[in-house]
């Protein structure tokens, strides 16, 4: 069993790897790289300054991983005669230029200053390796090197945090707290390992994409805090997540609050993060669709051919056939008649009315498939031989149903949970967009409209990973409910 799980995990990672790699390669090579500047507000300010424009664009491209960008000053660092190299048109610079051309670079000159610059776009393989090699970042005691703090103590130690709870702290790492406990899910938090999905641009510029979707949203959440220096104040800073700030950049305010260089803290926000939002809606909707779908399907199968079955079939056909968008708008029409908001930000996170309509819609979208499946399964089971024998034994329809059929039925239901989760993700994109709910689903089209490639790739990774793991989970769950199945490495999994 364990071997199977490990095998499947490896396969799952491989799937994610393939999908994300294909996405990376296709996005980076097929989407014109000029497009990312559509939403850039700084670039127009550079206006007609050609040198600055070229430098800005190429630096940005380099940052985002498109290409390797070098300017004459960097190129000349490799030559013996630095000052001679820096002269425009000199022998050294021409030799240098030839060298770079040989290595595959495109070498050009700045129109105004005349200095050389060169760039080489990464190949598909390089794109992939670059992305994945930066993927996992492990914090360690030697991470920080600060010229202004040469005798920085390097240690990892157990201590209590400002709440008196045990924590693992570090001096010399990038993060002050490597592990801490608090009251929010999942209760134990770590900063050892960080996943680097890239930097968001042009929207949320400079912020890591993973932070964009996992940090809270909305306005700052002020709380009374006691700083390490002893000072208390009302602050939105999250003292568990402070990173190292170079001594030269520490200012008076920092020194007032902090007793170390760890003064760069993240913020607490009022509203939940994008991930949490999507997750919340997803779970609620999933529960709703099962609560309606399963009993619905069972009921329909027990009244097969009669009115209830026919009504149910009409409902299912309607849900499947009608374009999701049209359905959402019809539902909104009804909902707004009851005073429910037609856009989420109208009432926001703290008003239950904001949640009702999207959850109901998302939930209903999932019921159709469930009902069809459940009904067909129940009908098939009713005709099974063991049911015939159970009847001959003298068991009543109700007893057969409760004690036999249901137990069989759980198997495909559990099997279907992963597909429901995947469906939920799809449905969420549409619903969140229409309702303007700040979740991961809405982020996808937003990121695409803004040509925010890092974000698109990040979301591809996360959503694919969710699906893959949901499938794996489904297969594992089945072993608990079906005594016939012992997982091993043969046979098709899906």
């Amino acid at each position: 069993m364990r071997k199977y799980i490990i095998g499947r995990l490896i396969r799952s990672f491989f799937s994610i790897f393939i999908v994300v790699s294909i996405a990376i390669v296709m996005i980076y090579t097929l989407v014109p790289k000029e497009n990312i500047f559509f939403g850039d507000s700084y670039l127009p300010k550079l206006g007609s300054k050609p040198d600055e424009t070229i430098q800005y664009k190429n630096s940005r491209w380099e940052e985002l991983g498109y290409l390797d960008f070098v300017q004459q000053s960097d190129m000349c660092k490799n030559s013996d005669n630095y000052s001679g190299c820096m002269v425009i048109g000199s022998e050294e610079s021409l030799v240098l230029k030839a060298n770079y051309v040989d290595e595959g670079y495109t070498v050009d000159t700045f129109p105004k200053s005349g200095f050389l610059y060169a760039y080489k776009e990464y190949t598909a393989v390089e794109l992939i390796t670059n992305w994945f090699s930066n993927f996992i970042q492990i914090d360690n005691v030697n991470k920080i090197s600060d010229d202004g703090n040469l005798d920085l103590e390097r240690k990892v130690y157990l201590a209590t945090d400002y709440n008196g709870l045990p924590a693992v702290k570090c001096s010399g790492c990038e993060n002050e707290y490597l592990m801490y406990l608090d009251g929010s899910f999942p209760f134990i938090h770590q900063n050892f390992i960080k996943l680097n999905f890239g930097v968001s641009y042009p929207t949320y510029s400079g912020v890591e994409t993973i932070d964009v979707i996992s940090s809270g949203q909305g306005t700052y959440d002020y709380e009374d805090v006691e700083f390490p220096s002893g000072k208390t104040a009302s602050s939105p800073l999250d003292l568990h997540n402070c990173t190292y700030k170079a001594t030269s950049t520490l200012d008076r305010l920092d020194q007032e609050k902090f007793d170390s260089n760890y003064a760069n803290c993240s913020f607490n926000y009022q509203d939940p993060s994008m991930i949490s939002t999507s997750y919340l809606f997803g779970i609620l909707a999933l529960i709703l669709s099962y609560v309606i779908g399963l009993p619905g399907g069972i009921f329909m199968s027990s009244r097969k051919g009669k009115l209830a079955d026919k009504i149910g079939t009409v409902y299912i056909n309607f849900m499947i056939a009608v374009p999701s968008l049209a359905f959402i708008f019809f539902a909104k029409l009804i909902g707004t008649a009851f005073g429910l908001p037609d856009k989420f930000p109208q009432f926001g996170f703290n008003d239950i009315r904001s949640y009702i309509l999207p959850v109901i819609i998302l939930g209903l979208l999932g019921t159709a498939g469930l009902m069809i499946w459940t009904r067909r399964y129940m009908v098939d089971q009713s005709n099974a031989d063991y049911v015939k024998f159970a009847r001959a034994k003298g068991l009543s329809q109700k007893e057969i149903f409760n004690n036999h059929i249901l137990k069989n039925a759980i198997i495909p239901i559990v099997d279907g949970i992963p597909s429901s989760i995947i469906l939920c993700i799809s449905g969420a994109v549409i619903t969140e967009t229409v309702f303007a709910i700040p979740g991961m689903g809405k982020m996808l089209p937003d990121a695409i409209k803004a040509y925010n490639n890092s974000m698109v790739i990040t979301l591809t990774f996360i959503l694919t990973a969710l699906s893959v793991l949901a499938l794996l989970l489904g297969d594992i769950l089945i072993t608990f409910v079906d005594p016939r199945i012992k997982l091993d490495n043969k046979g098709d999994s899906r």
Partner: protein
Amino acid sequence: MENKFKLVKLEEQASEHILAPNYSYWKSVFRRFFSSKVAIFMFIISAIIILMSAIYPLFVPYSPSYTPNINDFATRFIRPNLEYLFGTDNVGNSLFDAIWSGTRNSLAIAFTATAITTILGVTVGAFWGFSKRIDKFMLEVYNIAANIPFTLLVIVLMYILGRGMWQLIFALSVTSWLTTAYFIRVQVMIIRDREYNLASRCLGTPTHRIITHNILPQLISVIVTAISRDVPTFISYEVFLGYLGMGLTQSDASLGRMISDYSQYISSASYLFWLPVCISAIIAVSLYVVGQTLADASDPRTHFI
């Protein structure tokens, strides 16, 4: 009185006479289909819509970027009347023209994508079901592709490929055919090993006849079911992508884009918004019902009830 107790010669042929009624597959299919009033109704509706959207734009072309009346304020926002059956929009174009062009695009995309998905899927699936070697390989591919949420895939592909009709068709069908192929593969594997096929092989029936006479008829119902699901799904995606501005280009008529553009008029000129929404729903539902009924009718097992 003649002696009725005389022995009579046995007529071998008479006893072999089987009294089961004549059975024609296609006749039964059509009989079952047309016995449903709902199906007939939906069939008529979808036929009307398809014909209108195929023929009307040939005579009255429409493009959102062609706005002859843009400066004539009097032609704007006219509510539906006899002259403008669906009214006019914010630049004076007739919504009637717009809707039929948009529907035509939606249907063209949905049908083409379905055709590609089905043809590719059935062909690959049939071979897949027969060959064990292909099975091993295809299962790996399928597992990877099945992991990706379809919406994610379509959106990212449209991002990469850019807007346009063929890009959209490609994005919709590039992994859908795998799902169809998988379905077919499962069915073929079940049917392939059934006794009547083994019997046919024993009797010396050539493989291609086994495929066309034994296996394919069983598959028809499955294939029609898949088609009846795919068409509304693709319509739904085209509408949604149009709404997001990621589907067809600016100058193509698109129901989704109309819905997006006119959502701001939902209180002032609601007909502009609701007509595209309703038309998209009606065409999808009617095609789906027709497809489902046809699938049910073509399943030979239902012919006995």
